[in-house]
């Protein structure tokens, strides 16, 4: 392939991904005076951040003045079952309020308190009302604000463009190779620093809240470039996804429904969450329905209802109810917000006002009026806690010049993320990644890229067009993707077992072989079959990483639940699972000790336990 075939772009900082983290990083880097390019797989403003409904967690203490960064820090560590990176959890809690105020200065509008300040709402695992929100469309408000602010800053945006390989000059990052969807042509990006902000891995599973984009690109690109991944066994299944009709299975039902007083019931009408409250949360959880209701209505003396326990726990309780035959007709449980009319005058208007998106979504897609009837919900693959191992202060990975922020980075959330902590994560660490990537790029100009490596990557990407469909039916790209989703869902899902995960590894090996033989029809122009074939590589890499890390962690903690090791293990709680590429190209798993928090943070954790 001749070099002339690559359109080449030069930036100081290249940001891959245009969700909340990518845009916030781009804004910061651009403000530091370097040339910034953003590459995104979809159109600008369509990233999954728009789906975030609940809000941004930040200890502004506008609604409850007992809140502070210390409490937010302790909540985040408890939610993550203490395998979080303590320094990230501290920076996150300390800096989130400033990041929220900055958004307001850029034009974002949030719901208000009676005295005109930013209103905050309750959410699972947060001790006080902490989520800055606007109805149930906070993510849209955030992404639109960042998008509009960013484009007026002169950031170059390359829309509908997918990165397939990171390029290095020796040990240091030098750029990336991508293809643009419209014409299917390759583009070569040269940059002094690269920020990965590619989001999650949900498309490795059949039931997911994620869109087609979330194929673990950042995870897989970083891994291939030699960076460490950590915490890959911790994948969050959000307890409430839609379960019916089948075509909407997995679409998110916001936790804000429960924050506003919604309750979970089984088919017998019983609030089953009261039956199983983990010891770590016993002191903070209501033991009767009335107390739970008062909490959702702002009574500071009341403790939270068990529906607002952490997501990993609620998801497992729902699985238990359905497995034991107490589920709803379509295999979920009931989530009821309509019941609040017993408590509130004008409940119908209140629900529509607080949860307009949910009202609309159920009305239109399921024919259910949530102001009058309960919803049917069940767990859905939602969020990857694991990802690129980064330095807490700078967000730089183990590869010099390669940074990561948001969902594709790891450390902040430990074994389980609290709702609301991802939007604040995007802002806090997006900002940091942008700042330090710009600093790095000022010190290091883009190094040369190896043309042979680029040509080889481009040839490999075009190979599916060259192959002949083979006799034994390797399968088309969509079929292969569906098979992967099926077995990951069944074998490496919410409840895991050694023997099943071994089977998943065998299936991954087999699927890799078939993916290397898959063929695509048509030409290079806007060809989803081809794109899906290319995505398979990333999906297979992250699926293998999830499975190997999950096999290695022989305990149950947070989102990682092992049927064969159902208890927490103190020794396992002191290590991080690291995934990296071995010298022979094989995937290696290592255990490394977690950094110990300093004494003053340990004291905060103990005091607020």
């Amino acid at each position, binding site marked *: 392939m001749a070099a002339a075939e690559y359109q080449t772009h030069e930036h100081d900082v290249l940001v891959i991904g245009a969700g909340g983290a990518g845009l916030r990083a781009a804004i910061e880097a651009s403000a530091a005076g370097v040339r910034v390019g953003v590459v995104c797989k979809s159109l600008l403003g369509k990233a999954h951040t728009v789906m975030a409904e609940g809000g941004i967690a930040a200890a502004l203490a506008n609604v409850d003045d007992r809140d502070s960064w210390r409490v937010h820090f302790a909540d985040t560590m408890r939610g993550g079952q203490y395998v979080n990176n303590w320094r990230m959890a501290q920076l996150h809690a300390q800096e989130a309020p400033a990041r929220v105020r900055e958004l307001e200065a850029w034009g974002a*509008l949030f719901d208000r308190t009676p005295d005109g300040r930013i209103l905050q709402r309750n959410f699972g695992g947060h001790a006080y009302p902490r989520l800055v929100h*606007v109805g149930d469309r906070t993510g849209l408000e955030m992404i639109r604000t960042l998008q509009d602010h960013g484009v007026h800053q002169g950031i170059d945006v390359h829309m509908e463009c997918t990165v397939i390989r990171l390029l290095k000059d020796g040990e240091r990052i030098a750029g990336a190779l991508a293809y643009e969807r419209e014409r299917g042509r390759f583009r070569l990006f040269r940059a002094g620093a690269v920020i990965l902000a590619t989001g999650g891995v949900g498309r490795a599973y059949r039931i997911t809240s994620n869109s087609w984009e979330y194929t673990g690109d950042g995870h897989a690109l970083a891994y291939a470039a030699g960076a460490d991944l950590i915490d890959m066994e911790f994948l969050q299944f959000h307890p409430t996804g839609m379960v019916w*009709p089948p*075509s909407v299975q997995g679409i998110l039902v916001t936790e804000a429904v429960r924050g506003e007083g919604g309750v979970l019931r089984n088919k017998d009408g019983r609030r089953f969450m009261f039956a199983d409250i983990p010891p770590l949360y016993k002191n903070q959880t209501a033991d009767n329905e009335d107390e739970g209701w008062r909490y959702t209505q702002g009574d500071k003396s009341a403790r939270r209802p068990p529906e607002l326990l952490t997501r990993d726990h609620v998801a497992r309780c729902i699985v238990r109810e359905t497995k034991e035959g107490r589920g709803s007709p379509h295999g979920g449980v009931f989530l009821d917000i309509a019941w609040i009319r017993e408590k509130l005058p004008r409940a119908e208007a209140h629900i529509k006002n607080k949860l307009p998106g949910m009202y609309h979504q159920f009305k239109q897609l399921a024919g259910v009026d949530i102001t009058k009837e309960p919803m049917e919900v069940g767990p859905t693959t939602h969020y990857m806690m694991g990802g690129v191992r980064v330095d807490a202060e700078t967000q730089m990975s183990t590869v010099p010049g390669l940074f990561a922020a948001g969902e594709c980075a790891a450390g902040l959330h430990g074994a389980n993320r609290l709702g609301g902590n991802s939007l604040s994560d995007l802002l806090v660490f997006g900002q940091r990644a942008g700042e330090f990537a710009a600093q790095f790029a000022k010190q290091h100009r883009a190094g040369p890229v190896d043309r042979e490596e680029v040509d080889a990557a481009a040839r490999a990407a075009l190979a599916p067009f060259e192959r002949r469909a083979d006799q034994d039916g390797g399968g088309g790209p969509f079929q292969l993707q569906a098979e992967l989703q099926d077995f990951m869902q069944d074998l490496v899902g919410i409840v895991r077992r050694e023997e099943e995960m071994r089977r998943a590894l065998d299936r991954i090996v087999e699927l890799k072989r078939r993916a290397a033989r898959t063929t695509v029809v048509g030409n290079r122009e*806007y060809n989803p079959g081809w794109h899906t074939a290319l995505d398979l590589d990333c999906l297979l890499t992250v699926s293998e990483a999830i499975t190997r890390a999950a096999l290695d962690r022989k305990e149950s903690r947070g989102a990682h639940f092992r049927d064969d090791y159902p208890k927490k293990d103190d020794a396992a709680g002191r290590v991080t699972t690291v995934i990296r590429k071995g010298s022979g190209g094989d995937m290696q798993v290592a255990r490394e000790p977690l950094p110990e928090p300093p004494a003053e943070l340990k004291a905060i954790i103990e005091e607020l336990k």
Partner: protein
Amino acid sequence: MSATATFRIWRGDTAGGRFQDYTTPVAAGMVVLDAVHRIQAEQANDLAVRWNCKAGRCGSCSAEVNGMPKLMCMTRLDELPLERPVTIEPMQAFPIVKDLVTDVSWNFAVKRRIAPFRPRPPDAPDGTWRMAQADVDRVMEFRKCIECFLCQDVCHVLRDHQRHTEFIGPRYFVHAAALEMHPLDVEDRTEALRREHAIGLCNITKCCTKVCPEQITITDNAIIPLKERVADKAYDPIRAILRMLGA
């Protein structure tokens, strides 16, 4: 609902194209996008279509279904007559890329021409502002916009008269209204709305309002109040006299 249905999908690119029929199984609760995905996976791997959230929140899967501008992810098959083929074609107001995908980049360029948010100085010493919920609620409707561009697709000024170089279209009047009525914003965009964005070309047929999947009352709540501001500033006779007198 019948066990299968036929979808007449436009296939082609800048060189031209035609409708092609695909028959595929359908089930209760399916939306048009589900059928398109199934056809893509089983019969036409290279069928080009944009989508993301599949829940009416991102505004990617805009197309014309049986001639009506719709989000494919929010159009249920049980709302359509399935005894005859369901036609699906790309938005007509934008240049074609391939199949159901159009080149909507013009929209992103238009937005850059609108003066950005400029807040008043902070109200409190800590750099924060105070706002009443009622003032926030007033612009919430405009901020719901998911940028699906269906309003741009049906606007006569764009679709029939192709005035893309001088007219910004309903989406950007909604955007301008959100900024103009933002409780903190102090920028004045009325002159630009009149001269550079040609708000006068809108003859309030309300087609945009009719197709908005977010039910934004585009014409009545965004465009007409902006037109009133423009008229008030530029055409008020008393102000005109004062201007002449140099006051």
